[in-house]
């Protein structure tokens, strides 16, 4: 296909609808390798939108690029767990083999090598994306194999499938993961309950949102149903970007029926006819299987018009793909992204239940929440509320990774103690656990008696274990870099603050920090917490605070005794001047002057 025809095909696939701009650009780039000026011009003209809308998208999403990248784009996952599994050595191996620097494209345009935020393969890392296809368990052998394939210019479709095999690693299954749901079961149960009955059971279950915030799902559904408006939407948030989380990947692989029927049951309850499943770009490989499932559901009357013969139960689901932006996990940013815009969180209120997708009432629920909803409609709210704790009902799926013998997926009733999880996963020497990713909390052994529950240790699901060899300062520095990379840039405190924070942590790591920098970091985290627009900025200072409060020796050993050391190395800064004047004599160096 010619370039023009590829662009046109992508446009036609989405009826030239600007709300699908992100999908159109993803498809066009998939065919052509990048978003060229020609693509920009063509798409802007055909969609009748300013070209700046395309520029703003391309420069916002990490996976889109307006410069030609390599024919093979390698992105190594840069979560702390990847680093612990040796990602840095593999990165160097790639760079040496291709003779490129990190973030650059080889001169022949064959390959580019770069880092990317956590790819959700923490239990089988280090993770790699090759043109958005995921490869787990990088080691020297796999790196050499990939280098060979790239140098031979082997089409990605011809690469050995063993490279792409991703394990589910379900280590402990409870109500949700124990067995697959019989197709149609949740739909039949919902129909039997009736629309009001579903909402009543959801409220009785006290199910709370599993994305981290813990909002009561029944109230959300009721709020959406009661909001004025003729059209409503159900959005499934599968933008699982919190470093250390990968449970939604496994749920979408093993329990997709539950997630999709959970969406349909939600649609039935609130009166929505369209569902949107937003999947992070890193999980592109899940798409084909899910599309096939959706087709099978349509063919068997489990999606479409009059589902299971129930008049008026019309519902269908479409898949939207993200393109590398953590902030899109925030529900209003996700809606912006669904509308084909950069994922900048909206001003709230109004909340999505009254003004969401296309400003219509919208339920945005996490993958796990919707899967749990099938348990509620099938077994009833009372049975569901019988598990877990009073304030946190049901089970919780944890993504366990890091220094333990059995990383993977663990499902427990809420209220399970950290020590219990650590024992189950074979963490013999756990020194600390990062719960709920960088924005969560770091817990030390004196807190391992605490429970996973909204009222105690709340979590979206990440559970990263670290043993006594690990240095939390370096982990906090990795997290600081993550926040600076993922800040959307909308509000001043987060846009500037996350970068200042990352620079200050780097300065301390280089041995140039003093208590002055610590005070600055405290001030920054307080400023970000109190004035940022969304949760990203509000929590961006958490890792520093945990590092300073709980790991002070690790911090202090890096501090200089002096009150302040300048960020600039004056001697080094004079280097260009020496080079320009061809001087290397003693007087051209600082020491000589003093």
């Amino acid at each position: 296909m010619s370039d023009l025809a590829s662009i046109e095909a992508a446009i036609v696939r989405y009826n030239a609808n600007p709300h699908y701009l992100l999908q159109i650009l993803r498809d066009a780039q998939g065919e052509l390798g990048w978003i060229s000026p020609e693509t920009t011009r063509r798409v802007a003209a055909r969609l009748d939108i300013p070209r700046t809308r395309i520029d703003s998208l391309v420069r916002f999403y990490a996976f889109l690029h307006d410069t030609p990248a390599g024919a093979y784009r390698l992105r190594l996952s840069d979560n702390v767990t990847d680093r612990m599994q040796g990602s840095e050595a593999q990165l160097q191996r790639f760079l040496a083999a291709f003779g490129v620097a990190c973030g650059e494209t080889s001169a022949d345009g064959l390959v580019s090598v770069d880092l990317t935020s956590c790819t959700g393969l923490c239990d089988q890392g280090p993770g790699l994306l090759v043109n958005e296809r995921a490869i787990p368990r990088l080691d020297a052998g796999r790196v050499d194999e990939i280098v060979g394939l790239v140098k031979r210019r082997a089409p990605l479709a011809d690469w050995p499938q063993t490279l792409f095999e991703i394990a589910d690693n379900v280590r402990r299954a409870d109500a949700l993961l124990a067995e697959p749901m019989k197709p149609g079961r949740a739909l039949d149960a919902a129909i039997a309950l009736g629309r009001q009955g579903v909402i009543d059971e959801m409220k009785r279950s006290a199910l709370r949102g599993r994305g981290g915030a813990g909002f009561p799902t029944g109230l959300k559904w009721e709020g959406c149903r009661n909001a004025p408006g003729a059209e409503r939407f159900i959005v499934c948030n599968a933008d699982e970007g919190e470093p250390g989380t990968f449970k939604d990947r496994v749920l979408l692989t093993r329990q997709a029926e539950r997630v999709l029927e959970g969406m349909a049951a939600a649609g039935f309850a609130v009166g929505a006819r369209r569902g949107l499943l937003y999947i992070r770009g890193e999980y592109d490989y899940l798409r084909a299987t899910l599309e096939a499932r959706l087709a099978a559901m349509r063919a068997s009357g489990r999606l479409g018009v009059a589902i299971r013969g129930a008049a008026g139960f019309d519902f269908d689901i479409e898949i939207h793909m993200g393109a590398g932006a953590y902030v899109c996990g925030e529900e209003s940013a996700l809606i912006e992204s669904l509308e084909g815009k950069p994922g900048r969180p909206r001003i709230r209120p109004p909340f999505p239940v009254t003004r969401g997708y296309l400003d219509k009432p919208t339920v945005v629920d996490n993958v796990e929440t919707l899967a749990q909803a099938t348990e509620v409609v099938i077994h009833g709210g009372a049975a569901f509320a019988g598990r877990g704790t009073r304030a946190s009902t049901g089970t919780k799926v944890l993504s366990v990774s890091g220094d333990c013998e059995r990383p993977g997926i663990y499902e427990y009733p809420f209220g399970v103690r950290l020590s219990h999880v650590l024992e189950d996963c074979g963490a013999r020497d756990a020194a600390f656990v990062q719960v709920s990713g960088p924005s969560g909390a770091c817990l030390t052994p004196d807190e391992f008696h605490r429970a996973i529950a909204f009222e105690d240790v709340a979590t979206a699901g990440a559970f990263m274990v670290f043993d006594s060899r690990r240095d939390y300062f370096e982990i906090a520095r990795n997290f600081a870099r993550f926040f600076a990379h993922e800040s959307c840039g909308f509000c001043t405190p987060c846009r500037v603050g996350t970068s200042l924070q990352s620079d200050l942590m780097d300065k301390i790591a280089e041995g140039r920090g003093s208590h002055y920098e610590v005070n600055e970091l405290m001030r920054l985290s307080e400023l970000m917490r109190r004035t940022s627009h969304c949760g990203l900025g509000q929590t961006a200072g958490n890792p520093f605070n945990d590092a300073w409060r709980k790991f002070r020796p690790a911090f202090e050993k890096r501090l200089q005794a002096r009150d302040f050391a300048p960020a600039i190395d004056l001697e080094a800064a004079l280097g260009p001047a020496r080079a320009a004047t061809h001087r290397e004599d003693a007087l051209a160096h600082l020491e000589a002057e003093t």
Partner: protein
Amino acid sequence: MSEATFELDGVPTPFKSGQTILEASRDAGVYVPHLCCDPELGAHGSCKLCTVIVNGRTASACTMKALAGQEVEIDTPELEALRRSLVQMLFVEGNHFCPGCEKSGDCKLQALGYLLEMTNPHWVHFFPDLGVDASHPDVWLDRNRCIQCELCVRASRDVDGKNVFALAGRGIASKIVVNSPSGLLGDSDIAATDRAAHVCPVGAILVKRVGFAHPIGERIYDRAPIGAEVLACDVPESSK
């Protein structure tokens, strides 16, 4: 029209139903510092200078609606310190050299720096490599001075109907881009008469050849500090 009141720094203050805290405060003669909000173009909620404390929690006065009985803190040393830090952040993320800027004296960022008693930039400068776009015969775009308030984006879209500007990029790398084939202002359809050419609160977008029509010393904030027009109460909004 509601006769309800909310507490503004302890003073019962009337508000009209639907008004934001920023609007109600302005009507009451109380100035809340802000950069990205404009009476004509609406609230944006991004600069965060209008951060206030509402019933114990921080919120943006430009987007938060006033409600009966609400307790709002605006003028406290703690909030002044937060606002000063934010203004300092805006200074260090760009390249602001007031003595050489045509906007000096008319610049809201500079005026807020004075109002908030900012005596230094405090944070480490980023010194980003941005550029000047002088390609248009009548309008000048200097990205070094942009504070990303998106007033030009909104003015061009909502008032001029042109969509000349957009914010592109992410995080600290975000910057204003121009809707033209070359990305240059000279190839866009902006005109010096556009609202977008006049709305910039800083010196990032300037109309050419009028920079010193008003001499330094006789400019808006040379005469009175920013916010004085609100405090005076008898000066209507249009003189802003």
